[in-house]
C-alpha cells in the first residue's frame, strides 16, 4: 500500500514567479541543511576510523592495558563491560517482560493503574543518566553496601534500560493478532499456556528489538557508571569487584591520561562498531515488526 505523500506532484508550483523563487530558496536551504548534517556525521566517523583502525587487532581486544592505558589493549575492560551488561539485562528482562505483558494483555488502556505505570515509565525514560548515577551510588553502593562494584553498576543500568525494554516488548505484543488469543481461549488453554506458547513466540521480534535497544543504551552509558562500577581497569575476579566499562575507559584516557588519545580512538571505534551492529539489528527487527502490523 502506498501511503506516501505525493510531494513530487508539487514540484513545479505553477503560480507566480515570486513563489517559484521562494520554492527554489527553500529547496536550497533544505539540501544544504541535510548535506551539513551528513557531512558532520562522516567527518566524525572517518576521524574515528582514521585514527583508531591502526591500533585494532586481536591482541588489542584481549590484552590488558599497560602504562595507564596508553599502551596494551582493553581485554579486562571488555570483560567488565560484558559483566555489567549481563547483569543489567538479566535483571531488567524478567521485570520488563512482566510489566509489558501486564500493560498489553491484562489492564485495559483506560485503567488508572496501567496509565499510572505508563506515565511513570515515560518519566523514568527521561531521567538524566547522571541522576541514575547519583541514585545508584546512594542506594546500591552505600545503602545496600555493594560499594563500587560491577553488580552496583549493572543494577543501576537495569533501572535505566527498563522503560526501553517495556515499550518495545509491549509494542511486539500488541502486534500479535487478536485471533491468537481467541483461538487459544476457544481451545480451553489457560492464560499461562496462551502466554508462553502463543503470545511470547509471536511477539519475539518486539522482545528482541527491546533487548537490542536496551543493550545499545547500556553499552553507551558513562555518567551512570562513574560512581557505581568505578574505574579499576584490572580483570574483575567477581561481580563484587570494581570494573571499568569501555565508555569510562574512553573518558579516562581522553581526560586524565596525556598521550592516551591513540587508544581512546581505538576504544571509541570498537564501541561505535558494536553500536552500529546492534542498531542495524534493531532497525531490521523494527521493520519486521511493522510489517507484521500491516499484515495483521
Amino acid at each position, binding site marked *: 500500500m502506498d501511503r506516501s505523500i*505525493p*510531494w513530487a506532484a508539487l514540484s513545479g508550483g505553477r503560480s507566480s514567479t515570486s513563489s517559484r523563487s521562494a520554492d527554489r530558496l527553500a529547496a536550497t536551504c533544505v539540501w544544504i541543511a541535510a548535506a551539513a548534517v551528513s557531512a558532520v556525521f562522516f567527518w566524525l566517523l572517518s576521524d574515528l576510523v582514521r585514527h583508531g583502525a591502526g591500533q585494532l587487532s586481536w591482541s588489542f581486544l584481549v590484552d590488558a592495558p599497560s602504562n595507564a592505558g596508553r599502551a596494551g589493549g582493553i581485554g579486562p575492560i571488555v570483560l567488565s563491560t560484558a559483566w555489567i551488561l549481563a547483569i543489567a539485562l538479566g535483571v531488567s528482562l524478567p521485570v520488563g517482560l512482566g510489566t509489558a505483558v501486564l500493560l498489553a494483555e491484562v489492564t485495559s488502556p483506560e485503567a488508572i493503574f496501567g496509565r499510572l505505570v505508563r506515565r511513570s515509565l*515515560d518519566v523514568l525514560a527521561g531521567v538524566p543518566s*547522571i541522576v541514575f548515577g547519583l541514585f545508584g551510588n546512594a542506594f546500591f553502593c552505600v545503602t545496600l553496601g555493594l560499594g563500587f562494584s560491577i553488580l552496583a553498576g549493572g543494577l543501576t543500568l537495569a533501572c535505566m534500560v*527498563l522503560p526501553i525494554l517495556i515499550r518495545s516488548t509491549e509494542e511486539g505484543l500488541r502486534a500479535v493478532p487478536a485471533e491468537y488469543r481467541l483461538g487459544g481461549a476457544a481451545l480451553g488453554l489457560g492464560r*499461562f499456556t496462551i502466554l508462553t506458547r502463543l503470545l511470547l513466540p509471536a511477539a519475539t521480534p518486539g522482545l528482541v528489538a527491546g533487548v537490542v535497544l536496551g543493550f545499545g543504551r547500556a553499552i553507551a552509558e558513562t555518567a551512570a557508571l562513574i560512581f557505581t562500577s568505578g574505574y579499576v581497569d584490572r580483570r574483575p575476579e567477581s561481580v563484587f569487584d570494581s570494573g571499568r566499562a569501555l565508555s569510562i575507559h574512553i573518558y579516562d584516557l*581522553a581526560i586524565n591520561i596525556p598521550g592516551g588519545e591513540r587508544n581512546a580512538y581505538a576504544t571509541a571505534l570498537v564501541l561505535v562498531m558494536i553500536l552500529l551492529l546492534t542498531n542495524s539489528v534493531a532497525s531490521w527487527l523494527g521493520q519486521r515488526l511493522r510489517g507484521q502490523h500491516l499484515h495483521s
Partner: protein
Amino acid sequence: MPAHRPFTIWSESYRLSRRVDWLLLWSLRLSAIVSGALVLFITIFVVAEAWPALRNIGVWRFLNDASWYPSGGADGGTFNLVPMFVGTLLTTAGAILLAAPLGVLAAIFRQAYAPPGVGRVYRWLIELLAGIPSVVYGFWGLVVLVPMIARFEPPGASLLAGILILTLMILPTTALASDAALESVPRRYVEGAAALGLGRWAALHCVALPAAGSGIATGVLLATGRALGETMAVLMVCGNVVAVPASLFDPVRTLTANIALEMAYALEDHRSALFVSGLLLLLMVSALVLAAEAVDRRQTVG
C-alpha cells in the same frame, strides 16, 4: 485496532490451570508495580540525600552565596549553584536553537525533497547518529572541535563547543520526531494543496508543517530534556570553570558536569548539595516529559 486483552474471556474456564494463572497474574502485577514505582523510589532517594543540604544550607544560600567552594574552610564552605544553573540553561538553549530548525529541515528533506532511496539511507544515518555514545561525541569534540575553536579564540573549551556538541547529540531526537510527525500528516491535505496549485514550499509551510506542529513540539521538548541531562559530552568540551560566561568563547560548568566532577570526593553537606542539583535536574526533566505528553495528548484528542 485489534481487540487485545481477552483475559476476561479466558478467566472463568478450567480450574486445572487456575492456580498457575493466578501466580502468573500476581507476578505480572508485582513486576508492573516494581517498574511503576521505580521512578518514585529514585525521587525519594534523591530527596532524602538532598535533604541535609536543604536543611543546613537552605535554598537562599544556593542562590546568594559568594561562590561555589563547597569543601572549604572552617565556616563550612560556600554553595552558590547559580553559575552552574546558568551554564546548563545556556548550553541547552543554544543547542535547541540550532537543533530544532536543523532537525525540522532534515525531516523535510527526507519527507519532501529526497529521492526515495536517498531518504531511506538518510533516515538510517540519523538513527546511527542517535546511537553514538555521548562519551564518543565528547571525545571527538575534545580532540577536533576544541582545538579548532582555540585557533580563533583560546582556550577553546567553551560554551560554544558545548553548544555545538550538544546540538549534534540532540539533532537525531528533533529530526526523528519531526520526521514521524510529517509522515503522519494525512495524504489528502497535501493532495488538496496540490489541487490548489501550491508550490512545494507553500504546501509544506502552510499545510504540512502546521499539521505536524504538535508532533514537532513534542520532539523539541524531549530533546530539551536530553540536553539538560547530558553529562559526558559537555563535561569534556566545556572547560568546567565555575563562572557565568561573558561570551560564547568562555568556559562554563553545567550542573551535570559539576556532579560528575565532584561526586568522587564530596562528603557530607557537599555531597548532599550535589544531590540537590540532581534533584533540580530530575524535576526539570520530569516537567518537560509531562509537558511533551500533554502536547501529544491534545493532538490525539483534537
